[in-house]
């Protein structure tokens, strides 16, 4: 598997991009997140680890405001992006979602060609200039490590791509809008090891420009890519650490049990 080619130094002193303050969240009566407070640094990969049902995906969806349309949910606390509460009434949700991209666990190509998929967001944002669109297309596909494989298939239906290519297409689709924050919810869960390696490789390149928050699909992957790691268990944030400390020297017994494979 690919390791960070630059050799690993836990980044320190990075400014906070996303601040989660005393966040609690309920689906109906069921508590999903309990009083989470977490600073997410800019230009780094923050991984959210823990067993399923721990609230990791919910947290990602909240940062993108994707749960807005769900009924019977309740939230207290704040999520702050660059000093701005994203749930403040004056926030334009569409604009927020252009700044905060999300990639889901299952590849979800939209109906249409490869090109249409990548340019979906920019076109929605009102970009019409063909030269500009072409430039976005090439850049995004390159960043998602997909360009070489699809450069001759741009006008084929996106469904014709393999699963791994579809997932990287979805990453490219998010990147096309140059989001400031990229949320990745187990982006490699359906991928083979080679595609996974390619995606991880592109993450290392991407973090120079983007803030990445990722739910990895295994602890091994978390250990490979994490600049910061936060361990979630049953809706609680058990501990978080810069660097890979959480994997080598967990402070909490529960984290240690999870890392060493005693449960999860």
């Amino acid at each position, binding site marked *: 598997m690919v390791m960070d080619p630059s050799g690993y130094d836990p980044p320190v002193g990075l400014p906070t991009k996303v601040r989660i303050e005393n966040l609690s969240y309920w689906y109906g009566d069921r508590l999903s997140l309990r009083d989470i407070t977490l600073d997410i640094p800019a230009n780094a990969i923050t991984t959210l680890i823990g067993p399923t049902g721990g609230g990791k995906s919910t947290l990602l969806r909240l940062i*993108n405001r*994707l749960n807005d*349309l769900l009924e019977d949910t309740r939230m207290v606390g704040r999520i702050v992006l660059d000093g701005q509460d994203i749930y403040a009434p004056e926030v334009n949700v*569409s*604009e927020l*979602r*252009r700044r905060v*991209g*999300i990639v*889901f666990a*299952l590849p*979800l190509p*939209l*109906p*249409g060609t490869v090109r249409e998929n990548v340019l*979906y*967001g920019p076109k*929605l*944002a009102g970009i019409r200039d063909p030269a500009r669109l072409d430039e976005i297309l090439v850049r995004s596909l390159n960043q998602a490590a997909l360009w070489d494989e699809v450069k001759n298939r741009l006008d084929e239906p996106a*469904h014709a791509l393999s699963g791994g290519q579809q997932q990287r297409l*979805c990453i490219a*689709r*998010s990147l096309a*809008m140059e989001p400031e924050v990229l949320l990745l919810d187990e982006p490699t869960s359906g991928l083979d090891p080679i595609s996974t390696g390619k995606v991880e490789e592109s993450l290392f390149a991407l973090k120079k420009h983007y803030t990445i928050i990722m739910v990895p699909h295994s602890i091994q992957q978390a250990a490979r890519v994490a600049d910061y790691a936060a361990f979630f268990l049953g809706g609680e944030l058990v501990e978080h650490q810069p660097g890979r400390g959480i994997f080598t020297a967990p402070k909490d017994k529960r984290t240690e049990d999870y890392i060493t494979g005693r449960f999860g």
Partner: protein
Amino acid sequence: MLKSESVIGNKRRRFEIVIESLIRVLGFSTIGFVVLIFLFLLRQGLPFFFEVPPVNFFGTRWYPTFGLFGTLPLILGSVLVTLTAIVIALPLGVATAVFVREIAPGWAREILKPLIEVLAGIPSVVLGFFGMNIVAPLVRTTLNVPTGLTAFTGALILAYMALPTIISVAEDALDAVPKSYRDAGLALGATKWQVIWRVVVPAARSGIVVAVMLGLGRAIGETMAVMMVTGNAARMPITPDSLFRPVRTMTATIAAEMGEVAQGSLHFHALFGIGILLFVLTFLINLAAARPIFQKRRRGGLR
């Protein structure tokens, strides 16, 4: 103990076999009936194709009393009325389906869905009556045409009849679009309307095509309402104003003339000949409607 169990087992097995063969007989008899109807149609209609030369048959004048059996005005009449009906019903039907599925609040959807299904149950003669007494005078006065019994009036009534089919099938198609698609669209910064128009509707496209084809099949076979409001003049609808002139459809011709024709006469066979044409047409439409469904099944997995 063991013995009695095996006796019950045998009994049950025999019961199963009886039920199973009963179901099989019922299933095959449905197919059998369709085949028999088709054979009957062929038997009564085919002589016509042999006795009347194609020039007469595809002629432009339908005067059976004078031996003129030109079906072209009838075919074109059916096509004109049906296509116009679909042009009217397609945007209305899809828009209504989008509204019911995507925009209407839950309680409104609960009221609207059964209401739309009730629409499908209105007898066509009632709609024809309504068309004759309300729609036709309205068409005559607003468009200032000699008679309100026109192809356009028929298309309006047919559109209304095709709407429930189109709405409910299209709505099912929209419903089948996975929620994750909507999430993906929203996540890209699309507004609700953009998600509907650029993600959900395109994703449901094949289902919407099926909806329209089924509506088309319903419209082309409709007889009573059309007969009551289209004026029934077997003229060629080729002038630009044909839409606002009376026409006669294939179905109306059969229905109007079958009661007065001498059994076994050439005219009698001619009406069955039209029946064959109609059968082939609806069959083709249904086949076209079924194609996207089969394609989807073959592809399997994620759509």
